[in-house]
């Protein structure tokens, strides 16, 4: 699940490719303590950390190279995390969950300066988890049923998704979302850092269409990138888990249970 909660403790994740950074900052603070104890008591501030993708950096080859992930995750995603932490250090917005932070800073379309960093941190977490090694192929069960219900067929959905990605002018993202009000799946295209969370919708899958996501591997051949994503990278496992969670918030109707 894509969650970046403020981490108030240091944990050794025991991850062989551990690269997340959990940091503390200590400040002296007034605190009544027994006089035999040290007067200088520390207050712990917590910051957002960079979560690792759920696979090794070379696991998505040949559709997304290790080098791309090293730069995209290691430099760009990490950069957003660091910038966000710097901004929040002295900000009244400190202490929210990521989703709250995004909704607050979006400010109904007039985003505050922290929005870009917060949203991009969340977006990239969500994106890594929208992919998996040996991904692609078809969804199954409830997700497939819902797609067929809302798009007519899986291939209609696939065509619409690819078309939406190709029609994006500039930097942005393409999303499969569950619209909470309309109670159906839909494909949404957003610019720059905009995330469907701000409209109260529930994202199921995302595709990063910023050039840095594909330029090293595909140069200007956007169509190949998008098609490879659909055929080989998209994680229907993640989509299923997210749909299951989403159904706790959106009533998609009764399942068709045959009468005995």
């Amino acid at each position: 699940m894509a969650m970046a909660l403020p981490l108030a403790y240091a944990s050794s994740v025991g991850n062989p490719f551990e690269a997340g950074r959990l940091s503390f900052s200590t400040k002296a603070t007034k605190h009544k303590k027994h006089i035999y104890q040290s007067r200088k008591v520390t207050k712990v501030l917590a910051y957002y950390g960079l979560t690792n993708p759920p696979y090794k950096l070379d696991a998505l080859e040949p559709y997304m190279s290790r080098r791309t992930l090293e730069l995209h995750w290691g430099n760009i995603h990490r950069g957003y995390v660091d910038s966000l932490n710097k901004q929040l250090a002295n900000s009244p917005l400190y202490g929210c969950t990521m989703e709250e932070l995004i909704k607050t800073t979006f400010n109904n379309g007039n985003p505050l300066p922290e929005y870009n960093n917060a949203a991009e941190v969340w977006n990239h977490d969500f994106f890594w988890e929208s992919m998996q090694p040996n991904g692609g192929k078809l969804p199954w069960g409830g997700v497939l049923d819902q797609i067929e219900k809302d798009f007519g067929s899986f291939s209609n959905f696939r065509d619409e998704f690819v078309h939406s990605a190709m029609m994006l002018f500039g930097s942005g993202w393409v999303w499969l979302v569950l619209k909470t009000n309309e109670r159906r799946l839909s494909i949404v295209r957003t610019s720059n850092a905009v995330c469907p969370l701000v409209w109260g919708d529930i994202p199921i899958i995302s595709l990063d269409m910023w050039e840095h996501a594909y330029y090293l591997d595909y140069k200007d051949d956007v169509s190949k990138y998008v098609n490879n994503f659909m055929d080989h990278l998209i994680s229907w496992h993640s989509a299923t888990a997210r749909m299951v969670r989403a159904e706790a918030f959106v009533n998609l109707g009764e399942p068709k249970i045959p009468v005995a």
Partner: protein
Amino acid sequence: MALRALLTKRAPTLASGLGPFASAGGSGTGWQGLCHARGLKVAALPDLEYDYGALAPAISGEIMRLHHQKHHKAYVSNYNDALEKLDAAMAKGDVAAVVRLQSAIKFNGGGHINHTIFWKNLKPVNEGGGEPPHATLGWAIDTDFGSLEALVQKMNAEGAALQGSGWVWLALDKERKKLLVETTANQDPLVTKGANLVPLLGIDVWEHAYYLQYKNVKPDYLKNIWKVMNWKYASEVYDSEAA
């Protein structure tokens, strides 16, 4: 003859060695002949005045080649497609289609305009690239920004801060006779920020302009591009517009 403009003479390698009657990756030649018959003026990919590798090491030859032969050419083709569809829609009186085509025209047409200016803004070092401006433009820069360094710093800061894709411009406000630094998003041409603005210099900060070489370190790209900046062109435009 018009087809020649689509195939660039300066390209050191044209991957598909095509004959004069095939189109290199853009839409077919059919529309071109038809459009000329109807009097519709289509856009054409301009040639560069220098080789792809001539701006290295500031901008690599690979980037220049892709940028010109793929990205700019795609803007030209897509603009021409949209233009033809627009023409048809206007002839039929299909208002919905006319409105729907606006974003494609703005994006691709803007891309064509911006990149055409961009190629003229750059010059190899041994042909005068990077030489600072003198005379009228030099004085105007000192007046409006304090110094050339201040201007460069301002443009680099705005370029680095730009979120997403876009351009950073040194613009002349024709009416107020003042220089200013502006940014535009995506492929919006400078005029979208003000009808009186004339572009003197533009820097493409789309990732395709630098990613292969500089990766995500946009500030390095912005620092180095000044080494191949064609101030002579900027001065010429300034002198003709500010007169």
